[in-house]
């Protein structure tokens, strides 16, 4: 083996075209690959299908439970659905936010890093090197896009079912004002974005938990337990002092968007709470992941 010859015969590696100039392209390429993994996975598609099916179930149940038989009890917005199908979206989001939406987000967020570690693909991604910060960033971005997709599926399915089963017309807001159907649907878009923001905060918690283990099931369970514990604490009056700081406390504050004028105060509290959770748990995820020994 003539080492010297080999080295001298070898030209210096040419700089890869477009490498330092266009890092964004490589982010997008990696993100697309990540999204393909999430959205082409049968399990995740089944979860989205469940999210689409549940509003149908709720709509049919409300249709069957006789118009006018409303006694003002049960979850908010339920009573309005019979009068205006648009409200089915709000009813569905409210119902699904208690368990199903957090569950779906927990599955995808919990799997994000722990799944790669469990499969052993994490060591190859890091040896490529994908870059630890870049990998974490892409993972989180993809999960947030999934959260948005999940909320959009609920909204779209609810709107479709609501329109099919119930009369649809100008929307009477919680404050009593009536706005046009178009303006009402626009409000629903904002509601969907707000709920997606709530789920993105949960996803940040999920990402941090996901970096702690190589068992995705454990991470998923931990996220769900955390969300449920927060919801339970939120309903215990004795804990009133900590309620505003609970991650789930502001999830249902989207009704602020259904007032005229919009009740920005609650909305702001919610968005700030989500933002703080994203920052704190994003930092935890980074602190853990940037130094973690990958031995899986």
């Amino acid at each position, binding site marked *: 083996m003539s080492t010297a010859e080999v080295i001298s015969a070898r030209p210096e590696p040419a700089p890869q075209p477009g490498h330092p100039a266009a890092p964004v392209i490589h982010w997008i390429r990696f993100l697309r690959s990540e999204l393909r993994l999430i959205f082409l996975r049968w399990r995740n598609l089944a979860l989205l299908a469940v999210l689409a099916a549940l509003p149908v179930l709720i709509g049919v149940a409300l249709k069957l439970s006789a118009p006018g038989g409303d006694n003002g009890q049960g979850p908010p917005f339920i009573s309005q659905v019979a009068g205006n199908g648009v409200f089915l979206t709000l009813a569905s989001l409210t119902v699904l936010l208690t368990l199903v939406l957090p569950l779906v987000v927990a599955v995808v967020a919990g799997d994000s890093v722990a799944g790669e570690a469990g499969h052993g693909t994490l060591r190859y*991604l890091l040896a490529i090197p994908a870059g630890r910060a870049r990998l974490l960033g892409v993972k989180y971005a993809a999960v947030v896009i999934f959260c948005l997709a999940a909320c959009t599926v609920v909204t779209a399915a609810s709107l479709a079912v609501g329109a099919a089963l119930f009369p649809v017309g100008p929307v009477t807001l919680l404050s009593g004002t009536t706005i046009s159907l178009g303006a009402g649907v626009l409000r629903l878009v904002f509601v969907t974005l707000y709920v997606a923001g709530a789920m993105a905060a949960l996803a940040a918690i999920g990402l941090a938990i996901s970096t702690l283990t190589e068992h995705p099931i454990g991470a998923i369970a931990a996220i769900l337990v955390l969300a449920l514990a927060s919801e339970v604490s939120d309903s215990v009056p004795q804990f009133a002092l900590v309620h505003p700081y609970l991650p789930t406390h502001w999830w249902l504050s989207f009704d602020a968007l259904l007032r005229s004028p919009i009740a920005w105060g609650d909305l702001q509290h919610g968005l700030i709470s989500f933002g703080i959770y994203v920052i704190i748990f994003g930092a935890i995820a980074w602190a853990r992941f940037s130094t973690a020994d990958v031995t899986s």
Partner: protein
Amino acid sequence: MSAGYRAAGQRDEVSFGNADDEPQPASVSPRTEWAQSAIATSGLSKRFRGGQLAVDGVDLAVPRGCVYGFLGPNGSGKTTTIRMLLGLVQPTSGSHQLLGVPMPAGTNAVLPRVGSLVEGPAFYSQLSGKANLARYDAADRTADARTAGPRISAALDRVGLLSAARKHYRAYSLGMKQRLAIAAGLLGPRELLILDEPTNGLDPQGTREVRGLIREIAADGTTVFVSSHLLAEVEQICSHVGVMRTGKLVFQGTLDELRGRGTARILVRTAQPAQAADVLSGLGLQDVRTGEHEASAQLGGQPPEEVCAKLVHAGVPVAGLDTPRPNLEDLFVELTGEGFDVDG
């Protein structure tokens, strides 16, 4: 000779490894040499949280362009060392360079030029072989998306998987999975290939193919660092060898140096072994043994012809004389301990 030989060699010969004799890494591999090394480590150590010292002061020096066999029994710290080289595990102490670039600071700069296979293949079972390589290629920020297709096909072709490119990974055989992992290491132009047990789980044909592939890659000028617990495999393809034992590098050098390191013995076939043994002892030779029709001792640098002359002179009927050198396997076992003799 084998049983007696191993007993002879145990302690005094283990110490001939560089790592034990010269604790100052700087004197072994001065910084100037580091730049020419494909891999250079200095005092690389890893203590896991359980307190177990998995890697203990390893000073690797892998020259560019060589095929380096990283030998050691299972559990001797090879994989942990490789994980540290690739920045997957943080060393407790020590430092290292890849291709002259200090790690882990240079991770993003140097790892794109390094292909690796660490502790078996790992892919997405729901994706095809081709889609799996596309996934890893997408994670590489230095890879050009426009050339991904041809590069992936070329890598698959090189390991003979082109016809199975669209098959799901979960339907791959163990050998195919292993080859796909090697293909993943060949997606770009590499200057260094780090392969951890690349022939694990392969049938003899597959092993042959991988050996051929490694030779081919090395012939292109790529440095290949290949870990194995199979000496025969390393002997066939490697120019340099490092031997690990319970976390320590107990030998490092060329294959010929390893061969030369064995202590030569002199073996006298004679009808009077006791008499021959007396003569050998009288010459100051160590570790004198007698058999039914033979006597042997460590030669210890004495010219065998002189020993023979002394024997004949002393009236020992010499029927045959041999200076057997231990084979590589004996040397390896001597360095790493018997199979179940795991110390620490």
